[in-house]
């Protein structure tokens, strides 16, 4: 049992103390976590990105790195009432470039490829389940006509398909959260107290 293990274990217990109710020990651990996360991200970004990609090249005479540095500084001008419009330049670049890159990629990967796979899969039993499920679920979101008759039947079927999806997702969520609990209990009883062998 090292000092690091004990500190980690005590902080884990501090976080779990929330199960009894909100308390100062939990608050302390929560704030420490938030502070450390932000601090860690800042240091990693400074060390891995800002320093080697902008500051270092600047010192070695690569003046092109002034451009990203300047654009980065412009974003902070949002806090100034008079200079705030300048911050729109880097934001426009980020939004414009981001949308230009993301829209075709998303259309292809999330819509066209998915539609293609749904249609071409209708040669097997599973494929037909997917075709019926997608079609029925889409009819649930037809809001321009009243859901009666065949449309109402398909819409209800779509709702059942969605319920199955939500059920499966919730079950996986439970599985995921239990895995986190197992990880912490294994740490407390194994690494800290030494009750579990490796």
């Amino acid at each position: 049992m090292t000092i690091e293990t004990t500190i980690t274990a005590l902080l884990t217990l501090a976080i779990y103390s929330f199960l009894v109710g909100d308390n100062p020990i939990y608050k302390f651990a929560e704030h420490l976590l938030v502070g450390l996360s932000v601090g860690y991200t800042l240091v990693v970004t400074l060390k891995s990105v800002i320093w080697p990609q902008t500051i270092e090249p600047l010192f070695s005479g690569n003046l092109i790195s002034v451009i990203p540095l300047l654009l980065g500084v412009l974003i902070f001008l949002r806090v100034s009432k008079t200079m705030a419009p300048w911050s729109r330049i880097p934001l426009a670049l980020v939004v414009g470039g981001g949308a230009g890159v993301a829209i075709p990629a998303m259309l292809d990967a999330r819509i066209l490829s998915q539609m293609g796979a749904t249609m071409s899969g209708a040669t097997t039993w599973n494929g037909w389940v997917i075709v019926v499920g997608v079609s029925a679920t889409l009819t649930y979101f037809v809001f321009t006509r009243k859901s009666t008759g065949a449309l109402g039947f398909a819409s209800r079927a779509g709702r059942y398909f969605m319920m199955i999806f939500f059920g499966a997702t919730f079950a996986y969520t439970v599985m995921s959260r239990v895995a986190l609990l197992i990880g912490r209990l294994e740490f407390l009883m194994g690494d800290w107290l030494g009750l579990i062998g490796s």
Partner: protein
Amino acid sequence: MRDSRRWVFGLIGVGVTIALLVRLGMPLRITDDTRTVYELIESLDSTNVVMISFDHEASSLPEVRPLAQAVVDHCFRREIPVVGLALFSEGTAAGYSLLVERSREFNRAYGTDWVYLGFRPQYASAILGMGENIGDVFESDFEGNALDALPLSERVHNYGDIDLVISVADGSMPTYWVEYARSRYEQRVVGALTAVMVTSFLPYLESGQLDGILAGLKAAAEYEYLLGQPGAGTRGMDAQSVAHGIIAVLIIVGNVQLWLRRRKPDGHNHS
């Protein structure tokens, strides 16, 4: 029952604790998804390169570390060179420490058998940029070495030199690997995911946009079984099964209780 929430937490806590202390040795069935990923890595050798991206936060480590360790061990055991990186800042140190630890275990040399590139923000541009030239995205590795100074990174220029990307993720990052690396560069991508993300990625697996999925702690246990190397995943599965059993019983009890309450003529649904 007043404050039944705490009883639920308590019951699950006690159940998991007992299952961790007393090894129950419950049977484990290997799913097709896990076997597919295992066989995919099994088909590679020392002439191939696997890129492992640690796209997760520290909070999900108990679930993703056994998964990551299983695939890293498999790669190192088969002497497949590994290029590591992180697209989430919190995954940076986690990925590096895992690779350092496992490379020592398997006696794999840094620079020749594995390289760690470190962290890059703006994942879309990072993933796209690596398709053209990794050196444009990472001028140096995590340890500050120039990429052309290391034998492994010197010969890996872009996705054309990488046979498989494994995104160890607790969020939607594999989607971006599919959108930018798979769609544009035909890069094979596998998602090693927390269980909570699995249903979001099954459509990509069905459509063939993802080459495989490893789903949570259970997949880690299955992978450890296939490797013949029980570890954290295997240890956790007994506890997971016990917790699931308790939750299933509680759901049934809760529904029966609600049904009985509603049957009463003056029954109200008190929560």
